[in-house]
């Protein structure tokens, strides 16, 4: 979460010329952080497409070095105010591996419950308040509030439900303070958890209604044969842990992730671009993480109700239309409400809120499904339990190449559109990814030239 200082008013500048067209969005609206888009077309051919991230880097990986292990989850949580758990929990899992401990089932369940809360609040905010206006031809959520107040009312209640779960389990609605390496500082009270049951039952119905409403939108006719990458767990729709799988045959333990996927610096972006080391010809290394990737890979593990909702929304087991990610987000919201309800009903206050942890040297990996996609962590600790190495690969960094790839296809297919309409479509295309630009910007390859 950032201070308010630097958000410029969204400015757009489009210029139509006879043969050369430039589409520029100087400051993208309705995304987290600061990014821009630049497209240059000449004689009906795309010369250049740049999804630029100019959010300044924050050097988290460097500032973690030398820190004692138990500080790491709370520090990394600060990377994002929308999905702090992706950092807090990914770091905790990695450090628990490094320290040689395994948490108990009640701790694991509580973590999954908190994560369901994060999915609910993040997905609903994006789908209803930020992405839906694109489909309604409205400028922002305020216009929806005026036109469809009941949609905004429902979305706000759902979002609050997600935040309240984080508040009760995590100790605070944003940047939880009750979670640590090994578990929780204090287990939540059974009565407080049980109080969510009715609200979650309502949440299942509310997310279903919103999904069905969004399914009536007119979706641009565009599909891409994505390389989908997500976690997979043998027993559940993966959220907090699993192996990393793809629809092109990958099935990897976490410690092999970086052998198959890398990150590179490109001149036009402050954020590293993730790439697939074995991408098919013509993909330029692009791959997809996030709701559609999860849905396509793990559809079979959704609940009957979630599958039924998908069907009602016109989706089969594979969704390769990125604009329909708004539907997938609501299907995942319904799933998260159901899953949270199951965990709430089964909850008993555990005897121990956290497993005992002793510092030692070690190495560990962690990965969770942030609302926007897999968020990968790797740490090494020295004998005192201090961080000697840290590496974090956030989801939006991984999606950047795919965002540019989608933009290229979308622009090429819609060159007959007016500049204004094309600009709108491009922004909508970027928002398919719910990009969290602040999170993505975590490293700058700084080169000093001296003469």
């Amino acid at each position: 979460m950032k201070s308010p200082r630097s958000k410029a008013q969204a400015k757009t500048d489009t210029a139509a010329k006879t043969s050369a067209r430039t589409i520029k969005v100087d400051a993208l609206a309705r995304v987290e952080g600061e990014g821009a888009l630049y497209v240059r077309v000449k004689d009906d051919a795309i010369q250049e497409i740049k999804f630029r991230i100019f959010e300044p880097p924050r050097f988290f990986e460097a500032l973690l070095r030398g820190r004692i292990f138990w500080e790491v989850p709370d520090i990394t949580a600060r990377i994002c105010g929308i999905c702090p758990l992706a950092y807090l929990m990914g770091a905790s899992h990695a450090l628990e591996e490094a320290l040689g401990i395994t948490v108990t089932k009640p701790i694991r369940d509580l973590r999954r419950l908190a994560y369901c809360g994060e999915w609910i609040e993040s997905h609903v905010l994006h789908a209803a308040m930020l992405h839906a206006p694109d489909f309604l031809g409205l400028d922002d959520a305020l216009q929806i509030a005026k036109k469809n107040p009941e949609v905004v009312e429902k979305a706000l209640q759902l979002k609050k439900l997600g935040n309240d779960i984080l508040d009760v389990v995590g100790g605070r609605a944003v940047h939880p303070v009750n979670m640590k390496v090994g578990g929780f500082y204090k287990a939540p009270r059974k009565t407080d958890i049980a109080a969510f049951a009715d609200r979650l039952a309502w949440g299942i119905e509310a997310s279903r209604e919103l999904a069905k409403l969004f399914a009536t939108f007119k979706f641009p006719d565009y599909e891409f044969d994505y390389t989908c990458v997500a976690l997979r767990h043998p027993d559940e729709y993966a959220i907090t842990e699993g192996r990393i799988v793809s629809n092109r045959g990958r099935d990897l333990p976490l410690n092999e992730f970086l052998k198959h996927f890398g990150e590179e610096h490109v001149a036009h972006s402050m954020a590293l671009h993730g790439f697939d080391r074995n991408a098919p010809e013509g993909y330029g290394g692009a791959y997809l993480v996030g709701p559609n990737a999860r849905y396509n890979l793990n559809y079979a593990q959704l609940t009957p109700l979630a599958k039924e909702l998908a069907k009602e929304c016109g989706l089969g087991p594979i969704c390769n239309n990125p604009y329909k990610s708004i539907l997938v987000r609501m299907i995942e919201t319904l799933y998260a409400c159901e899953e949270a309800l199951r965990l709430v009903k089964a909850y008993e206050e555990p005897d121990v809120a956290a497993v005992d942890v002793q510092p030692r040297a070690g190495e560990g990996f962690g990965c969770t499904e942030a609302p926007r996609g897999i968020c990968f962590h790797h740490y090494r600790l020295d004998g005192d339990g201090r961080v000697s190495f840290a590496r974090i690969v956030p989801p939006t960094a991984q999606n950047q190449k795919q965002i540019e790839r989608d933009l290229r296809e979308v622009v090429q297919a819609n060159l007959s559109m007016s500049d204004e309409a094309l600009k709108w479509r491009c922004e909508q295309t970027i928002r398919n990814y719910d990009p969290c630009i602040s999170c993505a910007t975590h490293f700058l390859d700084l080169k000093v030239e001296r003469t």
Partner: protein
Amino acid sequence: MMHPFIIGVGNRWRSDDGVGPFVADGLAARGLAAVEESGEGARLIALFEGRDNVVVVDAMRSGAAPGTVRRFEAAEEPLPAGLFHYSSHQFALAEAVETARAIGRLPAGLVVFGVEGACWDYGDALSAPVRAAAERLIGTIAQESG
């Protein structure tokens, strides 16, 4: 504005952006109901719920002299867009107030105080003119709260 619920919006580790939390702290110390908030819109709307008198204090960037305080009777007229900045997906104070108005969730009494900031760097201290304005504002709100 009798017995108001005060929301101090801002980030106390970004210099003058911390003016909202600073005022909230000062009023809480005088026994008033005051909380600190980051400024995320949906949270603000949730805090409006069930409250008749709400006072919001936030840092402002309008180009006025640092320490300038502006008072907006937000229950009666729209909050000018563009004065209060917050980057989380651009759903912030002004959007929250107007959205709450559109869905009928605006408190009957809602006053927003904007305090013009000068410095937004990392740091936990307010600049001198902002601090002076904040201290005066604490007095004003405390006095009006009866």
